[in-house]
């Protein structure tokens, strides 16, 4: 039986974000009169040090046993307020949040009165639920001090080394026979023009010789189960399947170079049309010879068309493979909508290498925008000093490539600045193509429950704030799996992912959210529907009854909704609690 509720309500102005639209004092006044409310106050920023101090103070002074904050959104702030409540020796789950900014003041800017009324409704509902809240305990699990790194490119190897140097065991698997990823196949790297082997070589040597790293090449992930701190994975190796048990997983399996379909810009039709990747190979093999001219075309298969997120919302986030299959199919022909970030520098790098090998060769770069960000501007200058010619063409009119009688190529483009057609007779055409997501890794993402974005790359937990985390605890991403990056950027993200993973492993224990499914065994008939529906594999039928493995449960509620006997309820989101909210909405108090 719950003790007599003493609810404290704290309403936030969020500067003018809320205060500028909603009559906050009015709402506070209203809240103070609601049944069960002992105390109500408002502050400019409840999330500020002062606002939080006020909550702690009120809990002590008015011996509150429930707390409601009406403010921005739980997405960014629920954790902060729970911590605060906890600091005041109250169970963090005796806290409820009303979203009166994102879902009220921001969307009703032009109707302040109605917005204020809605805010009152939202607060009333939150209070109603709060009175029925029960304390919860967050399950704690041990974290195995070993990590699985998928992909031995520069990002993966960097991450592996960082963790290994910290004393953690690392299992580093690579699909190919040799570690090094796509960088291994490159000739030289911008902007230092160091040979790629100078970068990859030392890393390979280090991972091979490190006592804490087990490098397994020609190996892929077959199966992954378990949860943060305790993942069980099955690896397919040349000598049969191997099992491993790790605490964290870092996905660093890279991306692929987009290959234009046959015929696009005469690719695979006329032999003298190659990709920058292939030109890089030609330069490495020193097969260039002394061509009179090379024309490079930027953004081939990049910044083309656009995937509207709305178009793909139909897909359940969990079915990543299907989503990617659709995306890849759609993109194979017309290319990708995003900017691949590295192609401009790549083209400039190859242009410089060509000029160094064959100074007389005239190099023309057809571009739309040259995105030589950072200090790469100096690299661009270096190319111009070598008399590489940069010509801005009208991207909407793709250059036409035809063969001349004497076996050369004619590239006809429209100069964007003069608006005139320009033709270049050339010996070689190099197409700058973007990095694109790999397909295989997405099956893997599905295994690990990591969602992918509409651009086909794996999704960060938060695009801004958690760039190397995923929304699956214990699984991190590094390198180009989350979008195009150059070598230094991939190395940095490898370090970052390792740092994030090491925190879990270093602390040896981790707490997870208490909001999980709960089975009433008296009602459960063990039909197994929950087992089928659960995207996280939490329920398991044992002895005719459903057992929820809390640590796997993400609290999504699918099982509870599906259960024919209403045997499953959600902690912190019980039917009785939600119905109380609905009642409060329909029956305005006072």
């Amino acid at each position, binding site marked *: 039986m719950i003790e007599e509720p003493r609810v404290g309500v704290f309403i936030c102005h969020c500067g003018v974000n809320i205060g500028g639209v909603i009559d906050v004092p009015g709402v506070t006044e209203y809240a103070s009169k609601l049944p069960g409310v002992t105390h109500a106050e408002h502050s400019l920023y409840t*999330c500020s040090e002062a606002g939080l101090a006020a909550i702690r103070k009120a809990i002590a002074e008015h011996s509150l046993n429930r707390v409601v904050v009406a403010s921005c959104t739980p997405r960014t702030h629920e954790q902060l307020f729970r911590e605060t409540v906890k600091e005041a020796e109250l169970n963090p789950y005796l806290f409820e949040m009303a979203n009166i900014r994102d879902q009220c003041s921001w969307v009703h800017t032009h109707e302040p009165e109605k917005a204020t009324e809605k805010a009152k409704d939202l607060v009333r509902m939150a209070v109603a639920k709060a009175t029925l809240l029960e304390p919860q305990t967050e399950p704690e699990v041990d974290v195995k001090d070993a990590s699985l790194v998928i992909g031995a490119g520069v990002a993966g190897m960097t991450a592996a*080394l960082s963790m290994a140097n910290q004393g953690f065991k690392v299992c580093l698997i690579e699909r190919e026979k040799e570690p090094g990823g796509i960088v291994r196949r490159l000739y030289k790297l911008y902007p230092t023009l160091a040979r790629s082997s100078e970068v990859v070589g030392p890393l390979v040597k280090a991972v091979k010789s490190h006592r804490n790293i087990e490098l397994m090449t020609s190996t892929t992930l077959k199966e992954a189960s378990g949860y943060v701190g305790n993942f069980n994975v099955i690896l397919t190796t040349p000598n049969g399947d191997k099992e491993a048990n790790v605490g964290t997983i870092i996905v660093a399996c890279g991306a692929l170079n987009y290959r234009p379909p046959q015929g696009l810009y005469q690719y695979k039709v006329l032999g003298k049309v190659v990709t920058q990747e292939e030109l890089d190979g030609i330069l490495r093999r020193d097969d260039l010879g002394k061509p009179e001219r090379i024309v490079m075309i930027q953004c081939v298969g990049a910044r083309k068309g656009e995937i509207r997120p709305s178009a793909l919302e139909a897909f359940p986030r969990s079915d990543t493979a299907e989503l990617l299959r659709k995306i890849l199919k759609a993109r194979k022909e017309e290319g990708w*909508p995003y900017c691949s970030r590295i192609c401009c520098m790549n083209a400039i790098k190859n242009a410089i290498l060509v000029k160094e090998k064959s100074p007389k060769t005239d190099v023309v770069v057809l571009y739309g925008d040259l995105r030589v960000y*950072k200090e790469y501007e100096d690299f661009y200058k270096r190319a111009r000093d070598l008399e590489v010619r940069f010509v801005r063409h009208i991207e909407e009119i793709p250059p036409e490539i035809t063969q001349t009688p004497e076996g050369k190529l004619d590239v006809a483009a429209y100069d964007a600045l003069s*608006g005139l057609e320009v033709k270049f007779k050339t010996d070689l055409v190099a197409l700058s193509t973007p990095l694109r997501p790999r397909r295989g890794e997405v099956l893997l993402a599905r295994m690990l429950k990591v969602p992918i974005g509409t651009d086909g*790359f794996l999704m960060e937990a938060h695009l801004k704030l958690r760039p190397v985390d995923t929304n699956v605890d214990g699984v991190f991403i590094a390198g180009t799996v*989350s979008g195009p990056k150059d070598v230094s950027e991939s190395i940095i993200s490898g370090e970052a992912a390792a740092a994030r993973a090491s925190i879990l492993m270093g602390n040896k224990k981790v707490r997870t959210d208490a909001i999980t499914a709960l089975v009433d065994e008296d009602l459960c008939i063990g039909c197994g529907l929950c087992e089928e529906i659960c995207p996280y594999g939490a329920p398991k039928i044992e002895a005719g009854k459903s057992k929820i493995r809390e640590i796997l449960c993400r609290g999504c509620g699918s099982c509870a909704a599906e259960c024919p006997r209403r045997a499953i309820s959600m902690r912190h989101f019980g039917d009785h609690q939600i119905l109380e909210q609905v009642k409060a909405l329909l029956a305005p108090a006072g």
Partner: protein
Amino acid sequence: MQKAVMVIGGGIAGIQASLDLANRGFRVHLVEKDPSIGGRMAQLDKTFPTMDCSICILAPKMIECAHNRNVQLLTYSEVKEVKGSIGNFKVKVLRKTRYVDESKCNGCGICAQNCPSEAPNEFDESLGMRKAIYMPFPQAVPRVMVIDKDSCIECGLCDKVCPADAIDREQQPEEIELDVGAITVATGFDMFDPSVIPQYGYGRLKNVITAMELERILCASGPTGGHLIRPSDGKIPRNIAFIQCVGSRDRREWINHPYCSSICCKYAVKDAVLIKEHEPNTVVAIFYIDLRAFGRGFQEFVNRAKSEFGIRFVRSSPGEISEDSSTSNLVVWFEDPTTRTVQHNSFDLVVLCPALMPRKGVEELAKILGVELDNYGFFRSADSVRKPLDTNIPGIYACGYCLGPKTGDVPDSITQGSGTAGRIAEILAVREGP
């Protein structure tokens, strides 16, 4: 004993590095020269592409720093001396005088309400005023007032009204010594002063402002309460121009910022969209040289800015701006890339996007640390490809914009912050095992 590290600079990169190190079990001394941590991100209105309110998503991290048992906040402090080497640096930090007792002040702000003396508010790019005793911004961490002696008139009112008896006029600067195993630098950036390019009229023409000033004007808690108005007459600008590469990509010896600042194109598009959301009837044009919308989601965002919000993109770098003295409207002279002739358009407001440059005083800090700077005054990577976060001194690392425009935006800064945490954990953790 527990290994300690020092983080210099309390912006988003420094905060991320501190939290990751602290949660990894290291004792972190976070040294910030300003009275509050938060840095540049705290000044921004919204952040692309999620359009989250910048301070709203930053504040929880700032507060986490304050609450984390492993983090010692040394705000309003500066590094004065560094001796020793990797594994054991001896650092002298000067704690400047707030004239307010940190242990007593609870930041209630009654003193500021009563303070009669005002000064320009740095946090608002001096567009608004603050008192001589003040809190840098509402979400400041730590929540402690500070007295700015230059504008204080010594009236003593704050003493009288302070309920916590926290005012301490006798407070002396204090030098503390720290032993740390490693150091990471995250001192961030300053903005180029556009008045160095006279023909754009910044400082001379009232309605020519910088992008950072615009951020404050757009910000709900800014000097105009989030209302988009122009300086000359407080009217809503109906026609706004952004000018890119003001001092960036500039090789003139008296400017010398040849690099691309990497973020201007992106925040300009973001601001343009924000403006349309504030004032749907306002027309926005962006003058650029190359539109550098690289990085995840940016190209798609630019497409939306064009198709959904009708932002006008003009590939041309204007030569000069003149003023119609009767209206204070601005005439921007540029080459129309479609007609290839010189045109002049009138705008109510012009926003300059200045180059980002190293923080004032980094040369001094670099000397103290003994680390190298690059030609432009940013911290030089030991190897720009292989060791991007290392400096030339083992045990000293750098992250965020103080490394130069290696940072494309906030996530890059955060990744680098975590990255340096990784580098440091590598060298320090191994000594005592995991």
